[in-house]
């Protein structure tokens, strides 16, 4: 996987390097039939290129909404967002890839074809596509399941296909919305390590939503903690643990105190 898809960006954004995310005073209000819901209020955030940022916060605080806006899938009610220096009024797979909270696989395609889908959109040759899709499926431990249709897969397997689909696109920024929620702990850990390996190798910027504080600290360079509705950023922690991360760190003091600090925020807000 090369970074060649990033090249066209050089023309658009001479100032900011590819992969930088800037969120400035962003707010989001949903109009429902009954009342207006302020989902996010005055959120500002800077993610430097190549950083692994984890977003945590209570259910319904607006994490998915923030991700959708960064992906250009939803427009903020106020404020600005730039990705690699340019605003993102429309989804742009050359800049941003998304793994959704719900697997959202195409039921009429096999696992393999689902993973190939974003490549097919760009007109990549069939054989090339197949190889890359199979690599991605191997990465998520679904070697040999390529020919299955989504309804023939378990919940966790679907989610893994969805992750493979996100990875295969290889954009400079990867947004992942609770990608490991449906996985068992072993698979979750293996995939976490795999993700870190890919991240380190490709220099991607990753924004990752999770409910597991252990996972958050284990994966992140920085953890961003959000308050319940209306969602605001209440803390922004740097994780000073060295890379590569190891399971031993989980029982270390640094790890424990960071986890505790986040936990207190979450607890307070509930």
């Amino acid at each position, binding site marked *: 996987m090369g970074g060649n898809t990033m090249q066209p960006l050089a023309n658009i954004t001479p100032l900011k390097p590819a992969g930088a995310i800037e969120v400035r005073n962003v707010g989001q209000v949903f109009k429902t039939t009954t009342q207006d819901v302020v989902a996010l209020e005055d959120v500002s955030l800077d993610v430097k290129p190549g950083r692994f940022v984890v977003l945590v916060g209570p259910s319904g605080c607006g994490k998915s909404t923030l991700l959708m806006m960064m992906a250009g899938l939803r427009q903020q009610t106020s404020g600005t967002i730039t990705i690699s220096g340019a605003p993102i009024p429309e989804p742009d797979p050359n800049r941003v890839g998304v793994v959704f909270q719900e697997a*959202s696989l*195409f039921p*009429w395609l096999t696992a393999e074809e689902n993973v190939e889908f974003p490549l097919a*959109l760009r007109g990549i040759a069939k054989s090339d596509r197949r190889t890359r899709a199979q690599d991605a499926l191997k990465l998520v431990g679904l070697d040999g399941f390529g020919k299955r249709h989504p309804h023939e897969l378990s919940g966790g397997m679907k989610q893994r296909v969805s992750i493979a689909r996100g990875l295969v696109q290889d954009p400079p920024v990867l947004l992942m919305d609770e990608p490991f929620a449906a996985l068992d702990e072993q698979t979750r850990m293996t995939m976490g390590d795999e993700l870190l390996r890919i991240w380190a190798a490709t220099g991607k910027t990753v924004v990752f939503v999770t409910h597991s504080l252990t996972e958050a600290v284990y994966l992140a360079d920085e953890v961003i903690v959000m308050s319940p509705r209306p969602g605001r950023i209440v803390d922004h922690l740097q994780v000073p643990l060295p890379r590569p991360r190891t399971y031993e760190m989980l029982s270390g003091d640094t790890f424990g105190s960071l986890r505790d600090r986040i936990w207190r925020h979450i607890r307070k807000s509930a």
Partner: protein
Amino acid sequence: MSAATLRRLIVISLIALWEILPRAGFIPELFLPSLSSTLAAGWNEAGEYGHALAVTLYEVAISMAFACGGGILFGAVVGSLPRPRILIMPMVSSLYAVPLVILYPVFTVWLGIGSESKIAFASIYGFLPTMLATAAGIQTIDPQLLLAARSMGATLSQRLVRVIIPAAIPTVLSGLRVGGALVIVGVVVSEMLISSAGIGYLISRYRTILDSPHVFAGVLLVLAMAIAFNAAIKWIERKAAIWQTGTRAGQSAEETVPAALQPAT
């Protein structure tokens, strides 16, 4: 008894009744001539019917392309764009609410009396159900799938071809069934009303002179077209079955679904 056997039995008994009822005098030959005399009548004028069939098939084929192709495309575009949908759909379905058959004789003034007017009429007749079904099918698509495709940078046409149409396949197929059938009906009916060629023309000509065996020979040909069309749709359905695995239509297309998946009724 297997379903296919029972179906065959029904068909065979219908055919038998067709022969017996008129022969025994239960139905006057004017209304229903026996199957054998119908076949004989058709056979005697085989050339004439062959020529008429060619004309009708030509008209059906072109109308089918317009109605089904256009209907799916238009329905998909209109159904997936919220603004045009809100604006256009009510008008289109209102337009369809106008019983056009009444105006057909007047239409021929502008479209002429040849194949064009039949094709135009049948195309409109079949276009709208196909389009409406496609648009309706698209509205029931899981929005999450469209979101996912959008995030991967699918262009409008890619979303249409790769997401919207496959997801809407079951509904589109049924729209196609209805639309295609209406195309056949539309061509034959307009031939019956005004024309100088085609099966519909033969049917109405023979009716005017009370030649019922020849009328039903024409009807038989229409039935044959319906059967052929049905077979074609079945073929497409089988091809598309793999696409429908997420829906109940797909579930029942599979032989392997355990009994427990079947609803209680």
